[in-house]
């Protein structure tokens, strides 16, 4: 038995942990869990725990529903306890087939495989995401907690307390927070996580979404990561800061370059721009995601990069002297309702493709592109993100990069699931149509 497993067993015993929750996600990024007791723990750590995968999205067909969840002992974390409840802990799991082979539909596995590709090239991939979200009174409407000018009428700084509790909870879970602030829209908030390697960070994003929702629920309100819950105001994004390190050296930094980006950094950025339209169906995976990606709300629409403009698809934050290690690029298109394992995998794969194929970086966009007509943009070679999920799926479906990175099983299942979602949506009569058409037609 390795020392980290011994640590888990010992802690469970010493701390009187009553149950251990095994965590994993389905292909869409929904957290799945089942509990085991301390008596089952040793066997679970060595051999994994069997479960029926047939009811998990994207996991298995009926004839191959037996799955093994193998806990990753390094992710063992005691949950911050409430006096009224039994002490519990959680571990993230890798999903295996009964013969011990990694299961191809396990998103954590997809990310591990992509990170291995990066490490074979000598790179470590670091990410720092900024997740925005809204607080509403409940999950059935979009009533804000704070109303800008009506602030005086709301209970004193209700959302401020929520944020504070959330940050405390996250820090107790070992997830350090960089910034916390109220966002542009009413009732919209943002908690930024400190960078970490991509696997740790994808685990952190899953934990973060749960913690934000749980703390809200404790206070009798609802937190949502829905990309565009209210028309006419900003939606919620997951701006993702990224860099590659070669050992201790930031591979993106080059002092002599205008944007302080190295050849590697420029090629990586070019890779993201080139493949953004293909990976968009995963980084922005819902019908609703595309309601956020429209002009006028600080969300990106056009495929371009810039240092200052915050509507660019990718922003290169200004270099501060002496901060070579902080050189990074910020992808602004993903939204917080994505599956972080798959989104990080595809952004990394797109960047690596840029490095391996020596992509040229187009010039930095100037502000004019927002004033150009679509014909002028087309003439200047500036493309746009997909208009809707339907277009995104079509582009994604023909992408070798996405197919190769996700693997056949995950790719096929994802495309099938998203097509079904679009078909559903297409047949739905929306409130927009009732409002506009019923009175006049």
């Amino acid at each position, binding site marked *: 038995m390795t020392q980290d497993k011994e*640590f888990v067993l*010992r802690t469970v015993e010493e*701390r009187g942990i009553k149950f251990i929750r095994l965590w994993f996600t389905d292909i869409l990024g929904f957290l799945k869990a089942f509990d085991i007791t301390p008596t089952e723990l040793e066997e679970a750590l060595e051999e994994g725990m069997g479960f029926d995968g047939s009811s998990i999205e994207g996991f298995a067909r009926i004839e191959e529903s037996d799955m093994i969840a193998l806990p990753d002992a390094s992710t063992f*974390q005691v949950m911050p306890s409430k006096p009224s409840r039994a002490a519990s802990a959680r571990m993230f799991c890798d999903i295996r087939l009964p013969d011990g082979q990694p299961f191809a539909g396990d998103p954590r596995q997809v990310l591990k495989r992509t990170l291995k590709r990066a490490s074979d090239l000598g790179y*470590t991939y670091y990410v720092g995401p900024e997740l925005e979200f809204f607080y509403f009174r409940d999950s059935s409407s979009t009533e804000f907690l704070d109303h800008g000018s009506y602030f005086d009428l709301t209970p004193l700084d209700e959302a401020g307390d929520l944020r504070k509790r959330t940050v405390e909870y996250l820090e107790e879970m070992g*997830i350090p927070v960089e910034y916390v602030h109220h966002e542009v829209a009413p009732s919209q908030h943002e908690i930024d996580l400190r960078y970490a*390697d991509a696997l740790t960070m994808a685990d952190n994003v899953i934990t973060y979404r749960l913690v934000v929702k749980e703390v809200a629920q404790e206070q009798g309100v609802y937190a949502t990561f829905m990309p565009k819950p209210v028309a006419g105001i900003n939606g919620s994004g997951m701006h993702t800061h990224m860099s590659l390190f070669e050992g201790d050296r930031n591979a993106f930094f080059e002092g002599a370059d205008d944007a302080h980006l190295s050849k590697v950094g420029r090629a990586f950025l070019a890779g993201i721009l080139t493949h953004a339209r293909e990976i968009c169906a995963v980084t922005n995976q819902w019908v609703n995601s595309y309601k956020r990606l429209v002009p006028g709300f600080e969300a990106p629409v056009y495929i371009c990069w810039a240092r200052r403009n915050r509507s660019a698809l990718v922003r290169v934050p200004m270099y501060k002297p002496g901060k070579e290690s902080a050189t990074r690029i910020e992808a602004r298109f993903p939204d917080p309702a994505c599956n972080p394992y798959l989104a990080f995998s595809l952004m990394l794969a797109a960047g690596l493709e840029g490095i391996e194929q020596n992509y040229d970086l187009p010039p930095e966009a100037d502000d004019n592109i927002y004033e150009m007509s679509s014909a002028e943009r087309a003439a200047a070679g500036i493309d746009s993100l997909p208009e809707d999920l339907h277009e995104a799926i079509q582009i994604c479906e023909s992408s070798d990069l996405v197919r190769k990175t996700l693997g056949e099983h995950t790719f096929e299942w994802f495309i099938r699931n998203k097509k079904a979602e679009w078909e559903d949506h297409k047949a739905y009569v929306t409130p927009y149509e009732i409002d506009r058409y019923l009175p006049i037609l």
Partner: protein
Amino acid sequence: MIRLLWVGRERLDPEEHLASLEGRRPAPEPITFGQATPEALGRHLAEVILFDTRDSPDEAVAIMRKLRGEISQPMLAVVGAGSVASLDLSYADDFISDQATPDELEARLSRLVSDPAPESDGLIRRGEITINRERFEVKVGGDALDLTFKEFELIAYLAARPGKVCSRHTLLSEVWGYDFFGGTRTVDVHVRRLRAKLGSQAHMIETVRNVGYRFSG
């Protein structure tokens, strides 16, 4: 074998200087006094730094005084026969005669790099922090912290060496192992997580710029 760095007035083959190092593998890497900066040593993989005090004792002592508390590796002063009494060796972690046998030298080296002995009840106590290695438990005041295994290993390693600077490289190789692929930023990530969990005691882990971390001593 423990990796060594030889600091002397001139950059000569150290085997010529010390009989007990003849044929030793890995051979110590020689550098000069002028090259022995905290930054250079912080990046170096050597586990013990040998200082040749024989040619210019005053210069050697001055360099050791400057490096004291700034580097993570222990300093071993090599002294000539009969000069021990006249030398100020308070900045070195230990000293050895240039007449020592290879066995004696190796014994001295392994003592310098081995883990310090815990207190008699097996606990490490620093400030409000108590660490019980046997039970994998860290308490602040009376409250147990909910640490992951790596976080535990990291604080246990640092706290066992209060006041001593541990470089990122040392921490990476000691806590994660040499085969870990992730670079020393991993250490920074974990230190931040630990500080977040330590709360009021976060200051007990100090950052030493460009080198690494130090547990408040």
